[in-house]
């Protein structure tokens, strides 16, 4: 008898509500269930304010659900300590934000290497640096490795953010409106990059987006409506 491996990400009846003054609260997510296997890609669509980013933050261990469970590789994230959660974010998850969040004081390469400072050693080895260079090369930023974010275009910044998310070889890449602030050409290019990464590297991908074009490149497309994932 063999056990099948647990799904990469599983959301079980996840709900999230926020207090709204007095004793009442506003429910953003209700009974969200999701199962994502390794190598899968999913696009989550929905109107603004429907809870897409909230769902991604919960899946990325940046926020906690009001109810329900979030399991990453079979491990309940709510049962982990802060230190363990940080390790999960650092080693197993990659996050790409709409506002890229590159640090202006660091070069592109330093921004890419930033997650490696979170490790106890606090210093990236030569292999990591080589990997960073390869990734930058792959996304067309090799010539920009020593540039500051302020010297990059919007698309370049977002590609640098993707490379930063991939530096620790995560199992799951979570992207929140990655093309939201980009022009059409840059959005197209980034969509190609994400789809290629999912296809070539086997990294699972969850993309929250308004863009149906980008969503169409993903393996599955889900919609959030009234707090439910459909």
């Amino acid at each position, binding site marked *: 008898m063999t056990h099948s491996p647990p799904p990469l990400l599983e959301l079980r009846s996840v709900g999230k509500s926020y207090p709204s003054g007095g004793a009442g609260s506003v429910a953003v997510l209700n009974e969200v269930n999701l199962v994502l296997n390794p190598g899968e890609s999913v696009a989550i669509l929905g109107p603004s304010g429907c809870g897409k980013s909230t769902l991604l*933050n919960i899946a*990325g261990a*940046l*926020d*906690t659900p009001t109810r329900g469970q979030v399991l990453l590789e079979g491990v309940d994230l709510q049962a982990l300590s*802060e*230190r363990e959660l*940080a*390790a*999960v*974010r*650092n*080693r197993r998850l990659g*996050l790409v*934000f709409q*506002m890229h*969040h*590159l*640090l*202006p*004081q*660091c*070069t592109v*390469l*330093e921004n890419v*290497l*930033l*997650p*490696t*400072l*979170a*490790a106890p050693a*606090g*210093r*990236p080895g030569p292999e990591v640096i080589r990997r960073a260079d390869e990734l930058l090369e792959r996304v067309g930023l090799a010539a920009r490795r*020593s540039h*500051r*974010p*302020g*010297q990059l275009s919007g698309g370049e*910044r977002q590609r640098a953010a993707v490379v*930063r998310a991939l530096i*620790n070889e995560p199992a799951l890449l979570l992207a929140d409106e990655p093309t939201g602030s980009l022009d059409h050409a840059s959005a197209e290019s980034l969509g190609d990059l994400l789809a290629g990464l999912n296809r070539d590297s086997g990294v699972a991908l969850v993309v929250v987006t308004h863009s149906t074009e980008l969503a169409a490149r993903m393996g599955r497309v889900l919609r959030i409506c009234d707090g439910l994932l459909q």
Partner: protein
Amino acid sequence: MTVFRFIIRSLAYRWRTQLGVFLGTLVAAAILTGSLLVGDSVRFSLEQMARSRLGGVVAAVPPGEHFFRERLAEEVRLEVPVTSARSQAPAWECSIPGGSSLLLDLQKHNAPEENRRLEPPRQGRSQAGAWERGRESGRGLPALQHAGAFLGAPNASPVIAPVLMLRATVSLPDGRARANEVELIGVDRRFWQLAPTPAGAISETSDSFIANDRLASQLGLKPGDAVIIRVEKPSLLSRDAPLSGAAENTVAIRARLTAVAGPDQFGRFSLRANQVPPLTVFVPLRALQEAVGKQGCANALMAGGAEETALNAALRKVWDLADLNLEVRDVPAGAGFGRLAELRSERVFLDPALATSATAALPGASGVLTYLVNEIRLGSRATPYSMVTAVGEAPGSGANEIVIDSWLAADLNAKPGDDLALRYFAVGVGRQLTEQTAHFRVGRVFPLNRPSPEWMPPFPGLAEVDNCRDWEPGIPIDTTRIRPKDEEYWRVYRGTPKAFISLRAGQALWSNRFGNLTALRFPMAGGETAREVARRVRDAIDPRKSGLYFQPVLAAALKAGRESDDFGMLFVSLSFFLIAAALLLTALLFVFNIERRTAEAGLLLALGFTRGRVRRLLFMEGVAVAVCGTFFGAVAGTLYTRLALHGLSTVWKQAIAAMEFHYHAEPWTLAVGTASSLAAALLAMWFAARSHARRTPSDLLAGGGIDVGQDVTQAWPVLPER
């Protein structure tokens, strides 16, 4: 990419915000460190003043009421054991670079006493240079080291200088300028051996004198100028004491200025701590002794090169009754009390503490109090100015009985049972005298067979004159009342008392703040000589009780300096709100910096940094800024101190009585100031960082985007790009 590199990058990028934190810590550190250094400088300046004031004088017998033998100085010196430099070297001796060669060189100078001169050492160029520099600059420290080295030299004899210290007025011969309350100090070359550096030689017999710079400046004196020094002839007995002799007896000394003593040359010499230098004149000891009639006497001793305890032990061995102006003498046989010895004082009244010690040590001792009464009256008959002695228990039946001699009985036509009225002066406040009357009943009349003037103490102005009309006892005398028969009595019987009353009755009338006995009489053992009795008395008396002992003046002066008001804490207190404001500014700017980096903190959390690590990263940036701030603050603090001292020496000069302050920083104070400032700044930051809300990463990320800064040149390129 390393944590260190990340911190440097962040500091360089946000230098404008960090500059505020830097300036806040700098200001706090500068004020705190600077305030503490003001304390250091004040303590150092007070210590320098004490050393400049006392030179090599470690202990001193300060001038008091006694004039002791000048030779006592030499006797004490010979008795003080020669000790090693370690045990008795003044503290500052340790700071002489290459001190041993200097000490040895000075020892050569120390050998023949006649040739003792403080000259720069011939060997050891650096020491000689320091000596010269100290002398030229007048700063004092090298010179003080020189004196200290001399006195602290291994196997060097202590130096003990007899000094005659009096108060005088000094004026120019033409009367154009005059200085009152001048310290007139008679010294010999031993005194100058204790000086930081010698002011110049003054011959012991010449009419030359040395003025300190303050006096020279006040009178506009320069070498060669003549002055008139007026000094009141010292009396063994206070001028306030009854029967202390003529009230005014000044002498004038004409002298010519040979040198001006600066601060390094005992120009500030004084046994009393005073921020303002005294007005001082140094004259040859012998000349002053002759001028004031105190040949061979001194009233103070200055000692260096020996510890106070050793000096006092030596003094205890060699002192003599004469040093307390006491003498023991045989009372001539037939005085009516058997073979007796008498202890009496040239100061007329026996010091009460001393009399108590002697009485306890001498079995059978009985007190004597002899006084000059203005009048003894019986009815219309009166006898003026007679000595009356109070001694022993009350004769006969009562305390108010009086025993009179046959001369007085005849003069007053008195007989046993008559009531006699004694009029006398009682001492009031200061020199105030009030004439009072006491009544006694004649108990007995005794025959006056022979003179017994030994009952009378050596009243100045009385004891040494032949005629009653020449009396100058220091109290109002109406010489017209003195009759020929009184003169005849004085010629034949001198101070022989005409009457005796009980000691208790006498002390009730004539006790005063100077004493209540004029002599102590005690029986002598068979065959015992007066010399042996004197030895017995001497052994029974502790000269310390009469002020004849060395006091550790240097240690006391240094202690007073150390224990003076802590100007450091005073300045810290005065600057407290400034320091608190600077720290508050530091904390606020630090928080402001953190608040501006909310999204960055959220990003770091999202990338896998723990909350503690993010906090540490931000805090370490603060630490780096605070370390730089406090370092430069400490440097600025030294400037602040110099500025404060400059203010004290100029703008606030009147507030500190013209004291001179020298900048001085103890490494420990610098360390404490810097560490305290750093700790305070870090504490402020820590509290500020700690109060930062524990928000989730998503909240922090939602707090705002990270400004990537289009103008990258605003960051300082502190690290190469990579």
